[in-house]
């Protein structure tokens, strides 16, 4: 008699903590990006201040070059802790642990792996003149005085940091590697996934791109930054992996660092002088569209929304 009794499988709630408690994904994403930004700024400022106090240096904000090392180190630690590590922990609220890697797209592209990365590298390179053009267009837009004042301060700060003459490897680490990894974890691993669940793929790409642009607090560059964010999001979804976007982000930022290192006069170049030739912009747009159209298929699931692995 007992052998004929059906095996009773205990009921297990497969939903994440956020789903069990009714938190919409868009709310989690929006609140987390604000909290992550605050953590990043607090940690970064605290580390920079402690380093400067430890060295007995002053806080002469008129001479950014002398504070560059401490500021960049603080910025890097802020990004690693606030954007990278904290996001990886918080993401556990939105997904069961066994689906974590797939949810965060911490997996290599399943098909055409090499080709995916080659296309990613080509994309970020050929799109550069188009981004420069967008930056030039953005700078023509009128901004409120308060906003343009904030922007000028940001630009001055960046110019000071880039002109500080720090070792190139450190600059690449602080400006290319750390943001390339940590910002991608926040925006393309976690935020993109959350908005996909709430709004679908297309809107998720647009919204996370705009949030990426706003996050940098550079309103004179918000259009190119948002477009870059959308491009990185699109590549992430097409690849089923966040690693191509990390590589693209590294190349984009690292390219700027290397260019400034080789040609320091670029820092003080007038905006009008940085406008690329018309033919280069058109060529860039055409090449970018072509690469997007021909991007190799690499995902497990064509919709890109169902994150649980179909093969175990």
């Amino acid at each position, binding site marked *: 008699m007992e052998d004929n009794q059906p095996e009773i499988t205990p009921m297990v709630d497969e939903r994440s903590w*956020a789903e*069990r*408690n*009714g*938190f*919409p994904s868009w*709310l989690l994403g929006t*609140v987390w990006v*604000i909290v992550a930004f605050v953590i990043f700024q607090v940690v970064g400022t605290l580390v920079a201040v402690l380093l400067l106090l430890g060295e007995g240096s002053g806080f002469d904000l008129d001479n950014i070059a002398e504070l560059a090392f401490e500021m960049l180190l603080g910025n890097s630690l802020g990004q690693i802790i606030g954007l990278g590590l904290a996001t990886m922990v918080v993401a556990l609220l939105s997904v069961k642990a066994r689906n974590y890697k797939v949810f965060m797209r911490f997996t290599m592209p399943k098909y055409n792996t090499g080709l995916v990365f080659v296309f990613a590298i080509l994309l970020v390179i050929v799109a550069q003149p188009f981004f420069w053009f967008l930056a030039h267009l953005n700078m023509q837009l009128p*901004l*409120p*005085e*308060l*906003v343009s004042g904030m922007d000028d301060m940001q630009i001055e700060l960046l110019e000071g940091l880039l002109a500080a003459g720090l070792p190139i490897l450190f600059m690449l680490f602080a400006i290319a590697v750390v943001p390339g990894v940590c910002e991608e974890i926040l925006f393309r691993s976690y935020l993109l996934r959350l908005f996909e669940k709430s709004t679908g793929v297309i809107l998720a790409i647009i919204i996370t791109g705009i949030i990426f642009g706003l996050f940098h607090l550079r309103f004179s560059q918000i259009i190119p930054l948002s477009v870059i964010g959308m491009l990185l999001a699109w590549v992430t979804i097409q690849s089923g992996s966040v690693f191509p976007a990390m590589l693209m982000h590294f190349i984009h930022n690292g390219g700027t660092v290397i260019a400034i290192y080789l040609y320091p006069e670029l820092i003080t170049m007038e905006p009008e002088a940085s406008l690329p030739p018309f033919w280069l912009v058109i060529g860039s747009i055409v090449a970018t569209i072509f690469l997007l159209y021909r991007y190799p298929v690499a995902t497990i699931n064509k919709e890109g929304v169902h994150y649980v692995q179909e093969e175990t």
Partner: protein
Amino acid sequence: MQEDNFQQFEEEPPSFVQPAMTYGAAFAIAASLVFYGTLVAAMSGAEPGILPFIIACLGCLGIIFLPGVFSVKSFLKQTANKLQVGKGAVIGVVSGAAFGVMYGFMDLVWLLFGVETSTLVMEYTLALTETFGGDTGQVDEMRDVMEEQARTGGSIMLGVLFNILIYGILNMLSGMLAVSIWADKTSDEF
């Protein structure tokens, strides 16, 4: 039985938007009146003391968390005390955003009465500093900056966006707290 099913099918789920926005707007008006009203009353006297500022801050601080709480409490009546924490967070965000927008709008209302809220706090701080014999140079500089910002429309828009962000998050937390306190623990429906 069929009629009960049909009736259940016909009933629309309760909406939280109206109570959230109503409470958000109402408490914003109250907070603005308490904070700026106290400062205006203090400035009309001979020498403004620190006490009115403390009262204004405490009063406002007590009010800014209430929209989320009251909105959730009101919605719980419609759902027979069944509500998830996440839903309470959404209700709180909506009521906080309504609070932020109305609080910004109240600045325009005060302007109709000749009160520039953007400079009122600075004027009060300056008056306090003069009363206690402090250095007014830095405060004067800050007032010049704020007056310059007040002349540009961008600062009003930024102020409203900032309000929506801050009060949205604060009331998200108070909404979640309200659900934790008053909603049934086993709820899984709304």
